[in-house]
């Protein structure tokens, strides 16, 4: 009995540890979504309020949306993307203790190294837009995963369009550390 409780505690702590790992994908602690799925900062969300609490990370990742999508082989922001990013920027401006890593991703229709560069272009497009909306550049960092971490795993356009994405992953740690 006592052992079981300890095991549960240990597992919870592992979950928290995974959140502060900058290489979310290395640890294997991934779910759907960006870093850790819709609600990328999900564990924090549980402790700090749900998707209806405008001050919660869950609100940022789910109510506003932490993800924008791109056309094939493009890094241009669509009108829909700009709408989401405008709200992301305003949330970040009013929550100055948070920093963000913007992850760029590509679908599998491309070679590995090119897709790394393409994902970086997408992440950078988001970063520039957030800065243009008043977010301090030193609170943002970009990373590209290329085609290494698809969200949807089928090999049709239905999945590809979900994978051509940039995800704004917020945290209260120093940016990129």
């Amino acid at each position, binding site marked *: 009995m006592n052992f079981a409780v300890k095991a549960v505690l240990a597992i919870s702590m592992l979950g928290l540890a995974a959140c502060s790992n900058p290489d979310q994908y290395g640890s294997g602690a991934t779910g*759907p979504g960006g870093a850790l799925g819709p609600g990328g900062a999900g564990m924090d969300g549980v402790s700090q309020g749900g998707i209806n609490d405008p001050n919660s990370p869950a609100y940022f990742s789910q109510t506003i949306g932490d993800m924008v999508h791109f056309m094939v082989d493009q890094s241009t922001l669509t009108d829909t993307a700009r709408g989401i990013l405008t709200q992301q920027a305003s949330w970040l401006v009013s929550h100055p203790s948070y920093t963000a890593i913007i992850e760029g991703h590509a679908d599998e229709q491309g070679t590995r190294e090119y897709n790394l560069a393409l994902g970086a272009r997408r992440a950078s497009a988001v970063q520039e837009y957030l800065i243009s909306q008043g977010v301090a550049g030193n609170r943002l960092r970009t990373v*590209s995963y290329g085609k290494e971490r698809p969200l949807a795993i089928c090999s049709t356009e239905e999945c590809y369009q979900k994978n051509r994405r940039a995800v704004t992953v917020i945290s209260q740690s120093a940016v990129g550390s």
Partner: protein
Amino acid sequence: MMRFVLSLLAAVMLAPIAATAQDSEPLHIEITDGVIEPMPFAIAGFIPETQEAGQMASQITQVISSDLTGTGLFREIPKSAYIQNVSSFDTPVKYSDWQAINAQALVVGSVGMQGGKVVVKFRLFDVFSGQQMGDGQQLAASPASWRRLAHKVSDVIYSRITGEGPYFDSRVVFVSESGPKDNRQKRLAVMDYDGANVTYLTDASTIVLAPRFSRDGTKVLFTTFETGFPRIKMLDVATASARLLPEVPGTMTFAPRFSPDGTKIVYSMEQNGNTDLWMMNISSGQTQRLTTSPAIETSPSFSPDGSRIVFESDRSGTQQLYIMPASGGDATRISFGDGRYSTPVWSPRGDMIAFTKQNQGRFHIGVMRTDGSEERLLTSSFLDEGPTWSPNGRVIMFTRESPGAEGSASLYSVDISGRNLKKVSTPGAASDPAWSPLLP
């Protein structure tokens, strides 16, 4: 791991037995598009010189047979068809017995144990002209390296018959993959060219991509996400110890390749969304920018003499191949066909570029001359990418990924004629192969 001592002792064997009166062409395979029918050959032996060498002899025979038939250029005649029983290494060859079963090449060999080493002797015969081809040879190595001995023998046979350089005694560094498509685990691994002797060089704790050997085969460059961001790491193959190369904070660095002399690396650096090619001096860490376009420049590859670099860029609007001096400067576009071209790799002979091509929803591995002429596509599939050349420039290995939720990556090889496409044996899913030079 590489404590291998292979002494290629002097060529010791006697002159060939006198030729018969037949007046046929010397045995030779020209590797061209025209070669369709594999050359039949026989391996009489390798005969164990002692009882304890028996197991080793049969394993060595098996590897040599597999090397030769694996090229698609040779076909082994089953032992059950043999007429002459070659009972010792010095038994005179009865050419008529081998002509009768249409063996064009005959290998006679022996395996012995001397002073803790495996000693292999062999002779190659041109059956229809009734002559020994070249001198007999004797090679020795530690028992742990018996596969390399076999590959060395195969290399000599292959080179004598085809006139091409050897490639069997070589290794391949690659990325070993496991886990589902949306959480793929990746480890760096190295193996013999035929999939034997797999050794893992990294654990699965982070994503690793696209390794490349140094020309002496002792070091590997690759991209790792261990800091959370793509970074370049250089690894010593013998010890598996590795170090991150310096970076500019806030950038991503990837796609590293050694210069032929091993003193520099060319690589991609991404800053503010723009990816360019840079050169780094490995010992000083000093860097030099090679491209300045706002386009993506990546997947570089040095010419074998180190004077030029072929790379891909989307500066024209789509990915195309370009060649520039190794010091940077004006680049010349060499790809002009339909579709997108990427991952160019200069052949070890210097005359060809292998590449990935995407066109109308299909991926191809292809080759072209360095001026872009004579483009030929060798493969076609849902997703083929990342060619690497065998040390002799005759075979290309690449990644083939199957589609769908259950899709996974495998290594394939194909002759540059486009024939002999086959899967390379790996312990599990695998991607991003890079062929070593021929081992010393």
